[in-house]
């Protein structure tokens, strides 16, 4: 909130309007993350907006992947992981005692760095999430599978082989299958942890196109090592360095006139 306000003042009315019009979907207030002794995130405070794409950039080990794993509480599985401060999704602190983590993960989908389809059929991969929540009706599942695959721009390629194994697809197809699987449960937020880093340029282009479409229905948070990718697909960019949020604002602003010298240095490839 504070950061976007600062950049709005600098860049003028247009940004300020955009900032106030959009509603906050994910917000953090003094968020700290520790893995045992290691202080991974240091007092991070900012807001991400509904139906936008926010890109996280920064060198390896800067905490950006750890951050998105806070949003669906996947860090819970790491022994010694500890979070202080607030992480708000729709205004509710998801680290408050009594939070239903299972329900949270239904609202916050995730796509991983390495495509990780289950060793099951394409159909069963997509139906996995809905089945977890008790959808058993065949027609309804058929409908979800078709819609999710269409959403993920994979339907035309796989419609004739829904029964064959998801692991038999190409890397790019597997990743779109994973995206389809993540959106089959209709989450509000989609977290993507370097979703194209294991893919060839053509598959990457397809997925970038897909992400631009997905933001109509989802709030997308994406971690990327690819500066061009962040510039191409995101509305907002957050630059992390050694666990600190150095700068956050409109992507157009971050990539053309960053306030921080370190942001500019990283983007232009002077370090990282």
């Amino acid at each position, binding site marked *: 909130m504070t950061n976007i306000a600062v950049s709005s003042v600098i860049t003028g009315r247009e940004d300020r309007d955009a900032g106030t019009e959009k509603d906050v979907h994910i917000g953090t207030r003094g968020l700290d993350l520790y893995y045992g002794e290691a202080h991974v995130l240091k007092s991070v405070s900012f807001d991400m907006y509904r139906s936008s794409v926010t890109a996280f950039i920064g060198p390896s080990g800067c905490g950006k992947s750890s951050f998105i794993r806070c949003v*669906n509480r*996947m860090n819970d*599985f790491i*022994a010694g992981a500890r979070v202080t401060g607030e992480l708000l999704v729709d205004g509710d602190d998801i680290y408050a005692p009594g939070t239903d983590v*299972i*329900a949270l*993960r*239904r609202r916050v*989908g*995730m796509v*991983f760095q*390495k495509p*990780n*389809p*289950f*060793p099951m059929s394409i159909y069963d991969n997509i139906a*996995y*999430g809905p089945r*977890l*929540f008790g959808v058993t009706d065949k027609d309804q599942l058929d409908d979800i599978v078709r819609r999710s695959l269409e959403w993920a721009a994979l339907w035309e390629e796989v419609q004739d082989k829904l029964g064959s194994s998801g692991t038999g697809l190409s890397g790019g197809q597997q990743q779109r299958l*994973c995206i389809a*699987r*993540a959106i089959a*449960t209709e989450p509000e937020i989609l977290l993507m942890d370097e979703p194209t880093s294991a893919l060839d340029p053509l598959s990457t282009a397809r997925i970038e196109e897909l992400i631009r479409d997905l933001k109509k229905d989802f709030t997308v948070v994406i971690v990327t090592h690819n500066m061009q990718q962040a510039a191409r697909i995101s509305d907002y960019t957050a630059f992390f360095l050694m666990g600190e949020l150095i700068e956050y604002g409109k992507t157009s602003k971050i990539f053309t006139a960053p306030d921080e010298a370190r942001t500019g240095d990283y983007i232009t490839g002077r370090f990282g």
Partner: protein
Amino acid sequence: MMSRFSLQTRRSKDRAATLLLYCAALLLCAGVFFALYFVASRGWQVISWEFITEPPRDGMTAGGIWTPLVGTLQLTFLSMMATIPVGVATGLYFSEYASDNAFTRILRLAIRSLAGVPSVVFGLFGLSLFVVLLGFGSSMLSASLTLACLALPLMITASEQAFMAVPKEYRDASYALGATRWQTICKVVFPSAASTVVTGIILSVGRVAGETAPIIFTGAAFYTPGLARSIFEEVMALPYHIYVLATAGVNIEQTRPIQYGAILVLVVLVLSVSSLGIWMRRRRL
């Protein structure tokens, strides 16, 4: 001249070492094959359909091995019924639930020690626990439970390794979709590990089927007129039957061919079960 000489010595040393190691390996193989040949050459004459399907007769000097063969199958089956659920559940606990703390370390140590306990100790343990304390008497049940204890370490280790081998990515994907731990186990971890778990089961069967010491005190019969009809009856078992034929028969000279025939059947049974397990394990890797 000097260097040429030393090169020669090094070469001959290398050859000698190679030869020595080959000999050691050859000796081992020779030992195994000699034992197999020894058993097969003495046992094969008596092997016939009747030998397999007829019970022993005339003070075990005639007839076949039907009763002990079926008894061994019954014991193995019943012991697996006990070992599989406990072993798989413990393996799941270690792989999916246990964190690394003092309690789980002691538990692991206990299981590892259990694997090294001599089988006769299991026999005495079974005698005091199942036969006496729990009052099952000398019976198929007591013997099977004793065999189950013996197979437990193997079953736990095999299933834990099978579950651990399921890629973390599958679990991540499942949890990220909002699955509970139990849903993840049932829908992802277990199906992916099932075939490896089956391999562990088969290896446990091979281990249990040939054991003698654990069942002598707990339920193996010297002789029964027919097959056991209830789990509270004593049963004849192939390994114990062989022991009896070799040491305590009425006429040892007359029972010798039957003894070798029984050994051959048991060896073939255990070898084929173990080979099946090893083949399945290698195919997985």
